[in-house]
């Protein structure tokens, strides 16, 4: 799996329920603000407008607003200029979000705002100084919203790691599956400290001595084999992250090369013998010790507000998926439902006779 960090963050609302404002537009110096009200999530954002570009004759006006140093929102209204009434009626709104820094924080803010706007239903956007008040509804495919929340989660985990190790990463344009795995591991190490993690096999090395032979004999009797703790670090986005010490307990363990290892160790000449331990259920318990702790206060007010939206965003998305799943059988009788959900045996479904009929 990989997660693209950079993409076009454009949302379009074609169904603008209101949106007429008078002209001329005031200057930016007069303290214009773009205000979002998202009642579904009790979210209000007031973002200072830094630039206005208007070409009303051509039917377009754009407001750029800057959220701290991380994100720019560009709201573009397209519509009709009415010279007699001296006003401009917005008929479509595009909202473009750009991150000014390639950081998890900037991406987290964009992902959160975008997910909230898509999942909220009605969104109210106001620019009080020009009495602009529009009601918007953004509609995006569910899969995009789901991927947006996944991306937001990865950003959040990176931010937790950053706050804990005291370093802000410069994110690449694409986060690889291996990087996502390392982010997840480091996050759990910091937040939980002890957890079950997937593992296939692990190779450890014994000197060929009598003590090792005794230890191997003991280990073969065990279904949980402990290893370590040993110092643990991993490299994330080119930077080494030190995560204290890690102890591993391999569960449902078997020694894959037991006979060979026993033979080699029995030579008792001190040479190094690899021993391959495999978990038949593919899991190990990881215990981290002496790991850096995150600070007591993790986020500023803006980010904290967005962090707290998580469960509401989840519920809103899950409800949409559940509704779509039940819509796949809506309107059908019980008999019809059974008919369309009873699966064929493979031979029945695949085998076709010469006339093209099922045999």
């Amino acid at each position, binding site marked *: 799996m990989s997660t693209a960090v950079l993409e076009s963050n454009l949302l379009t609302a074609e169904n603008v329920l209101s949106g007429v404002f008078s002209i001329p537009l005031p200057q930016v110096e007069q303290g214009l603000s773009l205000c979002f009200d998202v009642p579904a999530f009790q979210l209000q954002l007031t973002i200072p407008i830094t630039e206005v570009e208007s070409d009303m004759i051509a039917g377009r006006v754009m407001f750029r607003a800057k959220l701290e140093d991380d994100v720019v929102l560009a709201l573009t209204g397209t519509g009709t200029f009415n010279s007699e009434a001296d006003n401009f009626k917005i008929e479509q709104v595009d909202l473009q979000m750009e991150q000014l820094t390639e950081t998890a924080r900037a991406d987290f803010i964009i992902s959160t705002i975008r997910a909230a706007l898509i999942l909220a239903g009605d969104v109210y956007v106001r620019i009080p100084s020009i009495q602009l008040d529009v009601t918007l509804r953004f509609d995006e*495919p569910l*899969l995009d919203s789901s991927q947006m929340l996944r991306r937001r989660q990865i950003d959040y985990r990176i931010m937790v790691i950053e706050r804990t190790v005291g370093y802000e990463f410069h994110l690449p344009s694409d986060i690889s599956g291996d990087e996502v795995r390392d982010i997840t591991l480091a996050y759990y190490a910091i937040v939980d400290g002890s957890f079950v993690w997937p593992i296939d096999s692990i190779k450890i090395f014994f000197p060929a001595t009598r003590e090792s032979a005794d230890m191997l004999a003991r280990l073969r009797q065990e279904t949980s084999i402990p290893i370590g703790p040993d110092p643990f670090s991993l490299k994330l986005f080119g930077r080494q992250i030190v995560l204290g010490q890690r102890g591993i307990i391999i569960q449902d363990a078997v020694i894959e090369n037991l006979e060979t290892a026993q033979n080699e160790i029995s030579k008792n000449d001190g040479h190094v013998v690899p021993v391959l331990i495999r978990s038949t259920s593919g899991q190990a318990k990881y215990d981290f010790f002496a790991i850096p702790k995150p600070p007591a206060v993790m986020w500023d007010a803006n980010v904290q507000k967005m962090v707290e939206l998580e469960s509401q965003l*989840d519920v809103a998305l899950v409800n949409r998926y*559940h509704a779509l799943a039940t819509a*796949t*059988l809506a309107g*059908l009788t019980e008999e*019809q439902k059974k008919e*369309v959900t009873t699966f064929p045996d*493979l031979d029945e479904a695949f085998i076709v006779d010469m006339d093209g009929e099922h045999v």
Partner: protein
Amino acid sequence: MTLGPALTETSLVLDNDIFNAWRYGRDQHIRRAIADYQSRLKLFPALTAMTVYQALYGFENKSIKPDEPNQQTIQARTETERLSKSCDVLPFNQRSAEIAAYIVPRLSKNIPKGTLVDVFIAATALAHGYGVATRNRRDFELIASHTPDSLILRIAAW
């Protein structure tokens, strides 16, 4: 046996029985399990191409009958396509084919016919590094005992 539990971060595909139970919407346990999964991974469980095939087969099979497809069937099929497009769909690719080809000859000739479908679902899940959410643990245990290269089939019993 190369069977393992689905861990916290294990990505899952839905077996057909779970997919249908979700569509019926009556089983609160399934709805909660899907919500819990989304809350952990932020994604929804994936579908295999085999599950999508079978879901669409149901409608096509109905559509060729007299007086069909009626409006309800068309609408239900449209929503089914929307649902499958709203989920990640894992293709039955080269690796899936290799895994399925390894498993099938090693199963007893007397296996229930449905097990063959489960092999294709399991092979697809294994090829893409996914586990399987199912109510039919026994079938998948049988399949897991014949996976190649000691691949571990992770099961979530929903």
